[in-house]
């Protein structure tokens, strides 16, 4: 039962925090992986979904039923989430420059639990709580302040947008059932607002172009953390949110055009960034952008979104990114033929082939989209691999030889499993050979090298256009308005005008009374006159009554 497995994963994740950080990391990772394998077996062995749910007493007259049993479609997604988490553990263990492996593995485990909770959600509040808590987990896994800052600003804003649209729906419909979302189009208001906010929220979470700064800022982290964050955490949550609330996309005419527009911009932006930026971690982040852009394009253009094919594509993208960071120039002593035939090259071909094939499978129902995507992926991956095979590596050869088998293990395993479960794919062998030939030609010729001058532009390497735009157009005016308001409202109006006037008025009154009470002829005359006035007034009032 998944409910039990979720608790096992949660508690194993929490226990891992308390494990010594620099010792026994392998043992703890092994235990975590065992817990995950148990969860996978429990999920695949569950023939009939049980209807166990946890009642969350959130308020006196309101209880929320937390559903922890995935429906059939979400079951595959749950498996995909667990597999990608196991891959994250594996690469965390391999990362020699990351010292808090146990801590990170614990966060990966809890993040996986939250993704599962989001996948199983049948009400908004469960979804919203899972999204928010996952943000806290990912925030904790980022170990650089600058990266943390950008991440939490963006995702806090995204969470608030999600909260606001769900609050509108809750306020109008009066229920929190996701299944009832389809009814929203019939009679309720603010449809365009809801859809646009939902899209912005998912764009921010998945790092779509113009909202991608947070994922560019994580480039100083180690590559295993970058891959975990890009493929197994918040961006994936963004897709889960979009998929769960996809019923809302039909209520506005703007939803699909916006999805298509932003996905195209993202793929182009990501491709240019991956090719022209020199820093390998930023390249990795841009590859993530291409992946999420392609995924969003499937939401925009395809009639149905296949969970199985999406997660195959996700795992292939994850493996490609991990391999991209690892792969390095083979020894210069080798001939060109040997360099192509060596183990690294074979693995590279395997990784690229699985990446491109999984995309083809994912988008095959729209042949134009699939072909364009394939072309872009082919050019970008060939250029990146050509660069990697011709650049100097910081690692020495011995280390590379030692690690290459460990790096190869998950790739070979996943590819064998992929072929085993999709043996029909082998029928496409002419297509596969043709694609790989084109790819190899592109790899050897590397046509993008003619645009090498672009890489020398400092702005491309170090500039952050989106942050500059945000700072100039949004933050700076807010700061100026805030300072002006402080000056005008607090200091000029209240302090210098109102309070100062009251102070002066009180001073003036005190002055008058002092003068009246002074021992002088004038004050005696005034007081006598006032007394006479009061007597006359009292007399006339009495007479008139």
């Amino acid at each position, binding site marked *: 039962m998944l409910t039990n497995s979720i608790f096992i994963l949660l508690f194993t994740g929490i226990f891992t925090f308390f494990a010594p950080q620099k010792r026994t990391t392998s043992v703890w990772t092994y235990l975590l992986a065992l817990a995950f394998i148990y969860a996978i077996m429990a999920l695949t062995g569950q023939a009939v979904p049980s209807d166990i749910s946890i009642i969350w007493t959130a308020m006196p*007259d309101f209880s929320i039923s937390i559903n922890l049993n995935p429906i059939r479609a979400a079951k595959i997604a749950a498996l995909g989430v667990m597999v990608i988490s196991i891959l994250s553990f594996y690469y965390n263990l391999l990362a020699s420059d990351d010292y808090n492996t146990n801590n990170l593995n614990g966060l990966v485990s809890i993040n996986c639990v939250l993704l599962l909770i989001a996948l199983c959600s049948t009400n908004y509040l469960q979804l919203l709580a899972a999204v928010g808590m996952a943000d806290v987990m990912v925030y904790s896994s980022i170990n650089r302040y*600058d990266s943390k800052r950008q991440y939490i600003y963006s995702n806090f804003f995204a969470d608030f947008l999600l909260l*606001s649209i769900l*609050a509108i729906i*809750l306020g109008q419909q009066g229920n929190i059932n996701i299944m009832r979302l389809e009814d929203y189009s019939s009679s309720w208001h603010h449809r365009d607002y809801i859809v646009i906010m939902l899209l912005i929220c998912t764009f921010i979470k998945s790092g779509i172009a113009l909202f991608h700064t947070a994922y560019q800022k994580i480039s100083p982290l180690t590559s295993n953390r970058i891959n975990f964050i890009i493929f197994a955490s918040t961006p994936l949550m963004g897709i889960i949110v979009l998929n769960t609330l996809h019923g809302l996309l039909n209520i506005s005419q703007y939803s699909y055009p916006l999805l298509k527009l932003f996905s195209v911009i993202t793929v182009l932006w990501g491709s240019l960034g991956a090719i022209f930026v020199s820093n390998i971690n930023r390249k990795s982040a841009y590859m993530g952008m291409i992946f999420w852009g392609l995924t969003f394009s499937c939401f925009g253009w395809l009639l149905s979104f296949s969970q199985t094919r999406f997660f195959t594509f996700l795992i292939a993208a994850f493996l490609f990114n991990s391999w991209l960071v690892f792969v390095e120039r083979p020894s210069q002593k080798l001939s060109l033929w040997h360099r192509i035939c060596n183990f690294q090259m074979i693995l590279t071909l395997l990784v690229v082939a699985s990446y491109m094939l999984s995309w083809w499978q994912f988008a095959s129902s729209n042949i134009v989209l699939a072909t364009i995507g394939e072309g872009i992926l082919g050019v970008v991956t060939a250029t990146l691999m050509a660069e990697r095979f011709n650049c100097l590596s910081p690692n020495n050869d011995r280390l590379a030889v030692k690690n290459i088998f460990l790096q190869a293990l998950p790739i070979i395993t996943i590819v064998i499993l992929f072929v085993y479960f999709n043996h029909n794919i082998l029928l496409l062998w002419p297509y596969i050979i043709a694609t790989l030939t084109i790819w190899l030609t592109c790899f050897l010729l590397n046509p993008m090298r003619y645009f090498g001058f672009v890489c020398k532009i400092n702005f491309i390497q170090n500039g952050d256009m989106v942050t500059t735009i945000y700072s100039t157009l949004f933050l700076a005016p*807010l700061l100026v*308005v805030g300072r002006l308001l402080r000056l005008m*409202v607090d200091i000029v109006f209240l302090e210098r005008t109102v309070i100062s006037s*009251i102070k002066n008025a009180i001073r003036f009154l005190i002055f008058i009374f002092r003068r009246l009470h002074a021992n002088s002829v004038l004050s005696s005359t005034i007081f006598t006159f006032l007394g006479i006035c009061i007597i006359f007034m009292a007399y006339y009032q009495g007479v008139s009554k």
Partner: protein
Amino acid sequence: MIENPNILLTILMSVPLLGILFAAISKESPESAGSNVLSVGILTVVSNLIVLYITGQTTADSTPALQLFEKFEWLSTPKIEFLFTIDSFSLSLLAAVHLAILLGLIGVHNNTYRQKTQVIFALLFLEMMTGYLLAADLFSFYIFFEAMLLPLFMLVGMLGDVHRQDILYRFFLYNLLGASLLFMALCILFNYQNVNIQDISKAVLSHNLEIIVWGAIFIAFLSRIPIWPFHYWISSINVNISNPLVFIIANILPLTGVYGLIRFFPLTAPDIIEPYLLALEIISIVTMVVIALIGFSNRDIHYKIFSYMTVYYILYLLGALLPTDALLSNIGFSIFSWLIIVAAIEIIVAHLEKERQSTSLPERGILSNLKCASFILSFFILAAVGLPLSSMFLNNMFIFAGLLTYNLKMALFILFAIVLSSINLLQHLFYLKYSNNDSAENTNSISDIPPSVIVALSVAMALTIISFINPLWYME
């Protein structure tokens, strides 16, 4: 099971008085450095929290209906009776106020300057606040409403920073206005019908008198809430107070305004002031946006906290003014976590400020080497901005749902102000954590939060998480 649970209200009122007595007669030697009187203060608040827990367990259920009643006859001619009662809403607020003051007392454990005075006035404030939140008749309500100003006035006068005379002047000016108007309104109401507070909206008055009375009551309560132009005296106190206990007490004070309005108009405001409510809502929302913007451009963390608190106080006020009482429990549960969170943030900020002054280090990056302080402050700020770490998360969503349904355009401004004030806090967190230069190495000379404070803040963290999982944990 207690035979007469109504007695719990009397105990709740008596414990702080007993604490004041013991604190006043406690002996202090130079060696004890105030620890004796502080222990009395902490013990008093903890004792009352236990009584509150028992009260929560004793009440039949968590519905907003009034549960326990305690009556004292003071005068027969004119007939003046003190009536105290409690419901789940006031129980939540009482628990939050007690916990916030408890954190405040723990926060000043190293501050030996006039510690006896601090503890005595803090307990006096707690006593007045308890009385105010339990009061169900006009007379006791007014007495506690005004009497709680005395301890704050004294604390600001004694422990305020350089501009304390100006602050006290504003304090006096604004509160005099509120006090006079409420006194006038209550005298008229008392003269016409000596009613209990829950029946006050049913009082029959002539048209002009109704306008005068309800207008006066509204202005009196608004003078306590930082709505323009009344925000100025509260912001002046916040910016000029570095003592965490006084800061927390000063920030609890606006709660009395929100609570007063909720108590006087539990469901809807009287028809006579209905046309003016729109103007009030507009002023409230403009205030939220203006204060959030000022907080955004201001470097002072105290102003940022004030800006955050103002925005949330107005949010709760607007939630309470909606024509429904369904949100009352949401407001209560949200305020419970919110006050604890703000008190905890203030304690850490005060500790950092003290350390900074003693080491003359810059404020930027001061947290970079303080693991405990950094973790705890991050937790509370993430909870404060509304991530699912406290009862604010879910309950605020219900309040937003009410506001967004009522008027989307206005609610969007409210959301903008909330996002901005939350970003203010996040901004300062990273300002404290992230250092651009080499000053991070120098921060090794700064000491982290003392263990006793860490324990207290950890309990506060646990309470906020529990309040997220089950906000009704202290009720049967």
